[in-house]
């Protein structure tokens, strides 16, 4: 018997809302949406946590410019404060090294992190989800109950087709989907994501492709000044 599975609910019990930011296709800006959403909520005074579960390509720490932090040990691991966010990631343990993990091992590492992380009381826990709907994402869905999903897509046909399938499986699993955000809009294929949302889920809005975002990576003050952050603040569902 795996005892860790019995403690995960307790570890998350004082969190009011758990928001999974997911995108079926890589490169849609899921991590940027998750990180900047967490920053924005923290700035609005919400007690906010951010959990980077994209173990294959963790990047929230790069977006937030997290360096030199490590969880405090006190009957578990307490996520350190990163720009007002309680931030947990596998990078505290891997450093800058690659983590060549198979799917089963990623799931096992996620279970470990969920079992030992002491979040305390939070209004929001934002989760940067593993990409796709393979075994790791399914394990996260199994382990973290009460997750509400925000899907991030680009207008690209490739991304919207994958998002359509992810939306279908989430709804088949009867998981709450708060809606769909269209990222990196360039004018081409405008409205594609809204069609995907259709009457299946809410279309939360579009965010234009923002060439200034790259220069703001790692600097939270600059991040919050970007057009990306300003448009995200208009389309996220917690206004």
């Amino acid at each position, binding site marked *: *018997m*795996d*005892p*860790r*599975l*019995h*403690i995960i609910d*307790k570890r998350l019990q004082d969190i009011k809302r758990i928001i999974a930011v997911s995108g079926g296709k890589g490169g849609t800006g899921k991590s940027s949406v998750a990180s900047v959403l967490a920053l924005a909520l923290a700035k609005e005074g919400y007690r906010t946590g951010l959990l980077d579960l994209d173990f294959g390509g963790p990047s929230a720490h790069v977006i937030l410019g997290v360096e030199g932090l490590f969880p405090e*040990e*006190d*009957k*578990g*691991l307490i996520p350190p404060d990163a720009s007002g966010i309680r931030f947990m990631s*596998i990078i505290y*343990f*891997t*450093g800058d*090294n*690659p*983590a*060549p*993990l*198979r799917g089963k*091992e*990623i799931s*096992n*590492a996620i279970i*470990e*992190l969920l*079992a*030992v992380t*002491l979040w305390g009381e939070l209004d929001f826990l934002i989760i940067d989800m593993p990409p796709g709907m393979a075994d790791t994402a399914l394990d996260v869905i199994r382990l973290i109950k009460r997750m509400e999903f925000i899907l991030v897509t680009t207008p690209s046909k490739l991304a919207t087709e994958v998002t359509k399938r992810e939306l279908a499986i989430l709804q088949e699993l009867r998981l709450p989907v708060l809606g769909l955000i269209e990222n990196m809009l360039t004018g081409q294929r405008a409205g594609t994501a809204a069609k995907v949302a259709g009457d299946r889920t809410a279309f939360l809005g579009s965010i234009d492709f923002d060439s200034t975002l790259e220069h703001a990576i790692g600097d939270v003050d600059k991040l919050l000044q970007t057009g990306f952050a300003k448009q995200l603040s208009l389309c996220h569902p917690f206004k």
Partner: protein
Amino acid sequence: MHEWALAESVITAVVDEIRLNNIRKVTKVDVKVGELQQIDIEIFRFALENVMKAYELVLDSDAVRIEIEKNILRCEVCGKTWSFDDASCRPGEDEAEAIHFIPEIAHVYIRCPECSSPDFEIVKGRGVWIEAIEGEH
């Protein structure tokens, strides 16, 4: 003190088992602790006793048995089998500390001693596991 979190998971599992199977008295809890996670057994045992009190779980003093499970790693590429405590491939102190928190981090810092691949399976001795819970109904 990350051992406390793992001890709490063990006690929570025992409490769940009591509730699920209407156990009146737990007589045996066999806990295996994988060598790879390098748990401090004294801290772990101390934490178990204190968490039991916090959960108002009363067990005989010898009911909880902790056994350290030898670690076995097997390379997925060349098939070589070896162990974490083989001196030739044991990682440094900081790396071992990271593995202590998440045993899968072994893939970051350990390589197959035969072919240097990071693609190996943790066959045995990963972390904390409950082998058996027995009780009277």
